[in-house]
């Protein structure tokens, strides 16, 4: 059978509901114009953004497809992938049974910019546009609180501005921060997120100013793609060992697009080492893996594809069935199709948890 014929049928008949925790509607800098002051608009056009990377334009690593997007996601009427709501409805929002989809804007957002004030102004504009440009037109599209994360206090201000607005699902960071995420400079973000009752989503990518690896600049896109697991491990270890979860027991972190196959081995390694080095980190009151499983949620895409599907199930079991949330990454090239992405052997209960139950609970979407 052809997928084109099968899917609308399944979408209509099935009671399946999907809460997708990672999509990327695209905005342009012109879209942000109404929400930027003249001062920052002029700044943007005079000086441009200052990402923490050596190339003023473009990415520090190659991409495999234009705009890193599915080649069939370019709207027929023109514009970038996921910039046209009508086409996005046809290809994604209405094509699949999407109940909610969380927008994680990656650019233009000003995140990680060297200029803190500019970063804050861009984050504000990106948040306004998520509401005015997307959520108002389709309430299934939930926003992320984009924060200028290298400036903790400015981030706190932006989170407080959005506190109580249920159209925002979580606070959004990118994984390649300037310093490790457990460091004090980022604590205001965690405090404000808890105050606002929001989880903190960490989406892979960003530019830290350092190579993706910790020993030099990789040559290939495949290295960039694979390294996210290493970067996210370092971030999670930092959050745990700096005692962030002891200080902020209500903090909930969502690792987005980072996979999760690395989590069990990280937990085992941490626990083993912790038993020998407890006196170095006396502020940890329990085994590191317990913080990991209690405070970290993961999104599914891009799942590791094990030779034996049962191995994937074992890894999910370790992560925790209530901490795994479905994501597609629409419109990006490594998109996961909801109808075929999950291992076929998953039972209905777990399938429902992953497709919507866990996100509904975490984001309080009832």
């Amino acid at each position, binding site marked *: 059978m052809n997928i*084109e*014929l099968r899917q609308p049928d399944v979408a209509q008949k099935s009671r399946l509901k999907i809460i997708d925790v990672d999509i990327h509607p695209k905005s342009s800098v012109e879209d942000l114009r109404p929400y930027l002051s003249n001062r920052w608009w002029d700044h943007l056009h005079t000086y441009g953004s200052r990402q923490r990377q050596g190339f003023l334009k473009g990415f520090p690593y190659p991409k495999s*497809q234009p705009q890193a997007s*599915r*080649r*069939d996601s370019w709207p027929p009427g023109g514009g970038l992938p996921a910039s046209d709501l009508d086409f996005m409805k046809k290809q994604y929002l209405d094509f699949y049974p999407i109940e909610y989809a969380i927008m994680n804007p990656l650019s233009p957002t000003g995140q990680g910019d060297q200029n803190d004030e500019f970063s804050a102004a861009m984050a504000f504009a990106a948040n306004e546009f998520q509401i005015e440009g997307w959520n108002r037109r389709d309430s299934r599209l939930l926003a992320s609180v984009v924060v200028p994360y290298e400036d903790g206090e400015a981030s706190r201000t932006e989170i407080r501005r959005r506190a109580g607005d249920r159209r925002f699902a979580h606070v959004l960071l990118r994984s390649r921060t300037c310093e490790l995420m457990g460091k004090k400079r980022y604590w205001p973000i965690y405090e404000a997120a808890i105050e606002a009752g929001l989880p903190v989503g960490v989406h892979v990518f960003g530019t830290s100013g350092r190579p993706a690896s910790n020993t030099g600049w990789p040559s290939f896109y495949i290295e960039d793609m694979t390294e996210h697991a290493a970067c996210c491990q370092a971030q999670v270890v930092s959050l745990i060992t700096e005692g962030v979860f002891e200080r902020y027991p209500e903090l909930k972190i969502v690792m987005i697009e980072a996979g999760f196959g690395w989590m069990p081995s990280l937990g085992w390694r941490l626990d083993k080492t912790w038993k020998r080095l407890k006196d170095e980190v006396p502020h940890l009151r329990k085994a590191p893996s317990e913080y990991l499983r209690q405070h970290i949620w993961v999104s599914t895409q891009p799942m590791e594809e094990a030779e034996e599907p049962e191995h994937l199930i074992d890894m999910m079991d370790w992560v925790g069935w209530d901490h795994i949330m479905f994501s597609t990454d629409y419109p990006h090239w*490594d998109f996961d199709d909801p109808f075929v992405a999950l291992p076929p052997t998953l039972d209905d209960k777990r399938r429902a948890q992953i497709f919507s139950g866990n996100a509904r609970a975490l984001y309080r979407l009832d």
Partner: protein
Amino acid sequence: MSGHVVAAVDEIPPGTRKLVEVEGRAIVVFNLGGDFFALTNRCPHRGGSLYHGIQTGLVQSKEPGEYCYSRPGEMVKCPWHGWEFDIRTGKSWCDPGRVRVRQYPVSVRQGTELVEGPYVAESFPVRVENNYVVVEA
């Protein structure tokens, strides 16, 4: 299986492809330098539409530092995750033993044969003076 007339030969010049539907199945017909091939329009990995993929060449390397680029345009690359398939065989480049796209036999027939034979023209009249692409499905 029966033969289905899916296009006039002129409609699919060398280097291009056409998406057709045969008995409810979406099929992509490729013309590689005059040879026609038909693959199901569904990537066996996760279901991407191969019609929307780019056609590319085969890059191989016998050893690091050496490469060989051959067969330009004869591989189709899935628009989603980039899996590559040999248009001539339907076999995937990264796992040819296990993963392949379903292939359908294709032939070019003269209009004179078709108007009398057991063929089905999907959406257009067949004229005796032309040549047509026929997919067996």
